[in-house]
């Protein structure tokens, strides 16, 4: 399993209720369920992925996080997870608000558009960057609202969203992000992982 999922799993406490928003084929849910006795639910937009989740015996709802989170009551989950999907929503701010309404805490991961390789591609080649975490071309990417670690960090601070944990991931290594090293991490990390609460 990819390191990102291992880090997310470490952030989630045992015996809790978790909602995985955009749960894909259920890899993370499966791991959470079997290793941390977590009562885990998923929302997934792709029919194909929903069926893969059902094969694994996971509880998944086919749906669109932007429309369907509304059905969950306030604070009905201990953690809500959003892995590398925030940038694909029409309105990421509404989604973040919904995550923090439905969950007591949320774990959000973002592909970092401030990563040096991303910046360099645009600067040198003058084309939209293509990297491991951003594999699509400009015309077929699902991403609508790319942001950097710094953007997300500032976004939370401006909205009084508490950043319980901010982690930078690069080359299979994680490190903490703080106000002091923010500019460096924004340059050196491929992925940002944030544990947030309102």
């Amino acid at each position, binding site marked *: 399993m990819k390191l990102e999922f291992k880090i997310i799993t470490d952030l989630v406490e045992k015996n809790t209720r978790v909602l995985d928003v955009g749960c894909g084929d259920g890899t993370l849910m499966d791991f959470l369920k079997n290793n941390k006795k977590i009562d885990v639910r998923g929302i997934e937009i792709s029919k194909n992925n929903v*069926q893969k989740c059902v094969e694994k015996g996971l509880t998944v*709802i086919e749906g669109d996080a932007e429309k369907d989170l509304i059905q969950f009551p306030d604070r009905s989950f201990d953690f809500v997870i959003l892995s590398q999907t925030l940038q694909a929503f029409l309105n990421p701010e509404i989604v973040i608000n919904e995550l923090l309404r439905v969950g007591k805490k949320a774990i959000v991961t973002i592909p970092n558009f401030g990563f040096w390789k991303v910046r360099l591609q645009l600067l040198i080649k003058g084309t939209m960057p293509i990297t491991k975490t951003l594999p699509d071309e400009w015309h077929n990417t699902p991403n609508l609202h790319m942001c950097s670690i710094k953007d997300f960090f500032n976004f939370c601070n401006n909205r009084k969203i508490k950043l319980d944990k901010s982690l930078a991931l690069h080359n299979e290594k994680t490190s903490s992000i703080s106000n002091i090293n923010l500019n460096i991490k924004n340059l050196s990390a491929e992925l940002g992982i944030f544990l947030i609460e309102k």
Partner: protein
Amino acid sequence: MNNINDIKKIIVDKPLKLDCGKIINNFPVAYETYGSLNAKKNNAILVFHALTGDQFVSGINPITKKDGWWSYAVGPEKAIDTNKYFVICANVMGGCMGSYGPSNIDPTTNKILGTNFPVITINDMVNAQYNLLDFFKIDQLFCVTGGSMGGMQVLQFVSNFPDKTKIAIPIACTASHSAQNIAFNELGRQSIMADANWVNGNYSNEKLNPDKGLSVARMAAHITYLSKNGLQEKFGRKLQERDDLKFSFDADFQIESYLRYQGSVFVDRFDANSYLYITRAMDYFDLIKQHHGNLSKAFAQSKTKFFVISFTSDWLYPTSENKDIVIALNAIGADVGFVEIESDKGHDSFLLNVPVFLDTLKNYINTSYLNN
């Protein structure tokens, strides 16, 4: 077995109060089973049939000699694997395959009940079938499932008996019958009642049958079970065994001939009064109203795991109505999964060979049984 009198049935001696207020006694519930009940009695699946179904889910129906109505889904190694599970299906109250219905004989007059049969509801049907659990001494079912009106019974079952099933799979259904669906049912009923041979429901006693009315009812309903695209693809404007239009009202088009055929075979196996009563029961179904406007309350006492399935081209019980059930369940933190299956076969998709649907059903049931 090829006689309706050979059908398996239990006679329920506990009085049952119907929603209409009438109390019934010693009424029959006809049923069929497939597979065998294990020693722990934890592998029983109660299947509820739809409007025109019966208890003969799988294999050859001994009365009609046709395949059971859910043969694609139920049988050895199928989605509902009868090598593994004990499948029970009862003929609904109001039906015409051995359960208490309008074609029963009234012992006080020795005549067929006809419209003296009480108006029944989905709730009454479910309460009648519940007696099968006592009969088989099953404390808790593993699963209840069914499509269309069968799905409505699934919802009503969990609402009435919150701890009597581990999992529930309502398919292509609704928690509250829509105006459009009531309208289509009314069209069918009016068609039957407009047939002079219906004679106020007394046709059997007068050795008549409202074939024309019932077959038109079936034709109209059949259109609602299919999708526009499905019809267009299958029939288009193809002509029926002719090279050109005949400038008459014969069945020029294949779709006309197909519908006429569907109507004509239906009258051989279905009772017109049953059609009236069962469609009425569907129209009266409103689980939301039963719970004073809050569907979540229907399931609040239950720990049952739900899996809701809808179909993209089903416009009779559209995805939105199936999703309302999911929303109500999520509102109380119930364990509920949901998938909308891609299919151009309309509402009938759940009865047909739709591999993605059958695989999903199979996977859900089997993985739930593992965690049982």
